[in-house]
């Protein structure tokens, strides 16, 4: 066998190994969610038993709803604050404390979640002690997630702002747009794709966070990852498989839809560009 086909074979084998490593656990999880047995590891026969159990498991459903609510609100806050930070750092070049803000805003990206969670907890406890506010619960989890999400949203929006032609702002101003009109008519519409991806990213971050939530949540506020985590310690119940499968299906559908939309837009754009060149050569 030649060297080239050997390499090809190796590459293919490696690829399959990686796919198995990545997806076998997920496939197993999905398959076992349809298992009738109470044991997670032993297959008896197919049934929808655990989906019925899930429908009755109000604690778990409440946790999912709470997680969705927190993810949605904290993603909104993250995108808002992250965009403000990105603008301050990229559109206003010189101001006091810029370097400090620039390095501090990316700190949560590298800081271990445990440290962030612990320090937030200490802060909230002492705030409670002195001010009697805030109570641990929805608000504190939201703030923690928004803190982390802001750092990520800042990175996404910053990269978009950097690649955007700064001359567009100047052109708008030159044509008579006041600064706020420059933002609403030019900058904001062009930022929308970045804002959407920042939203999706921070939504996901918040939705699967367990460390920060554990530090910051109070009685009656257990998020989905927290519930799954605590039940796993008591011995897994296939209901968890069912809820995981539902999540996977929803997420996969969203990912497929968004990539289909993106590639469709890309193809349309390419076609139109080709059209422009053939027109101009007539």
């Amino acid at each position, binding site marked *: 066998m030649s060297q080239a086909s050997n390499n090809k074979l190796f590459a293919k084998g490696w690829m399959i190994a990686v796919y198995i490593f990545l997806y076998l656990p997920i496939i197993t999880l999905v398959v076992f969610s349809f298992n009738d047995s109470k044991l997670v590891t032993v297959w008896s026969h197919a049934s929808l038993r655990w989906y019925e159990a899930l429908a009755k498991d109000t604690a778990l459903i409440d946790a999912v709803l709470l997680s969705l609510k927190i993810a949605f609100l904290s993603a909104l806050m993250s995108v808002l604050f992250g965009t403000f930070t990105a603008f301050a750092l990229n559109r206003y070049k010189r101001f006091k404390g810029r370097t400090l803000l620039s390095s501090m805003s990316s700190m949560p990206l590298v800081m271990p979640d445990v440290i962030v969670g612990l320090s937030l907890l200490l802060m909230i406890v002492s705030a409670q002690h002195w001010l009697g506010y805030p109570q641990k619960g929805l608000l504190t989890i939201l703030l923690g997630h928004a803190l982390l999400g802001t750092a990520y949203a800042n990175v996404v929006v910053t990269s978009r702002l950097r690649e955007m*032609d700064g001359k567009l702002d*100047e052109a708008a101003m*030159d*044509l008579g747009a006041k600064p706020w009109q420059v933002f609403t008519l030019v900058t904001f519409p062009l930022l929308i794709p970045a804002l959407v991806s920042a939203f999706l990213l921070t939504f996901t971050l918040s939705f699967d966070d367990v460390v920060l939530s554990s530090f910051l949540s109070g009685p009656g506020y257990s998020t989905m990852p927290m519930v799954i985590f605590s039940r796993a310690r008591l011995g897994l119940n296939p209901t968890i498989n069912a809820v995981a499968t539902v999540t996977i299906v929803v997420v996969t559908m969203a990912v497929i839809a968004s990539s289909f939309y993106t590639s469709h837009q890309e193809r349309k*754009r390419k076609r*139109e560009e080709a059209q*422009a060149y053939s027109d*101009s050569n007539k």
Partner: protein
Amino acid sequence: MATAPKDNNKPAQEVLLRVENVTKIYDGTVKAVDDVSLTVMKGEIFALLGGSGCGKSTLLRMMAGFETPTKGKIFLAGQDITDLPPYQRPINMMFQSYALFPHLSVWENIAFGLKRDGMPKDQIADRVEKMLSLAQLNKYAQRKPHQLSGGQQQRVALVRSLAKRPQLLLLDEPLGALDKKLRETTQLELVNIIEEVGVTCVLVTHDQEEAMTMASRIAVMSEGYFLQVGEPDAVYEMPNSRQVADFIGNVNIFEGVIEEDEADHVTVRCPECVHYVGHGVSGHKGMAVGVALRPEKIMLSKNKPTGEYNWCAGEVIEIVYFGAHTTYHLKLDSGKVIKAQELNNTRDLSCGLTWGDRAYAHWNDLAMVVLTH
């Protein structure tokens, strides 16, 4: 457009833009523009020409209002606009990158400025249609900028900056983004549109050809100040310094000393030859000067010229063929290399000179310029 037909050879002598002693200093130390003053007449196309970092773009950006001068004032039609923000100036700019709004159609791009002025809808539609026909882009009104070719995008950028009928139009390297072939046709289109509208123009460029073909006056800039301001032919034929002569076109400069200084002629002795200049100059006897001689004004022959002045001899060391003309590099006996450009006015390519030949370069007594600094 509703402008009266006007005589382009005789612009109205009315000052539109006046820049008074403008200086721009960045970060407290870097002088981008150094005490520049200039006036632009109504209807003029004025070019700021210079290499990168000479301050021409900074000057243009101060006219547009994107930068404020550290010192000095800018007046437009007598009104002090030094501190007005860009969106309050009756000045529009065409950007080098065009800066078309990618999320808006061609139509909306052109209407952008008109809407900001709160113009009634039917008038906007009317004006945009006029602009589209001016740019011959009526068919493309609903397209997005990325669906247009480079030349079309450029025309959209131009008519977008003309749509508000600005008193002054600023062009930043208007042809910088186009390839050479497209440049020539676009240059003419651009000038035609500008002249049809009759707008006063200040353009910035590093390309001397672009400046010479488009502008009625040129300011050559270097290190933040003007070296020379004048009409294109004056700047080319009568450069006032070695720097200008060197920057605009090709030039051979002979260093020498004025030997004879008369009212109707001077002679300059150089190591290579003696120049007889057929007019008086503002120098004095014994003064060290440079004699600038453009390559196209030099004639080559194999035979030794008979006169005493205005010729020198050397060896042909390089022949560069350009199609319409050929440039010969001649190594003089002193070791100096000069360039001579010969027009290829017959199809017979062998003018008799080849590598290694001894050739004589000669020129007439009005071909050169004496540079005193």
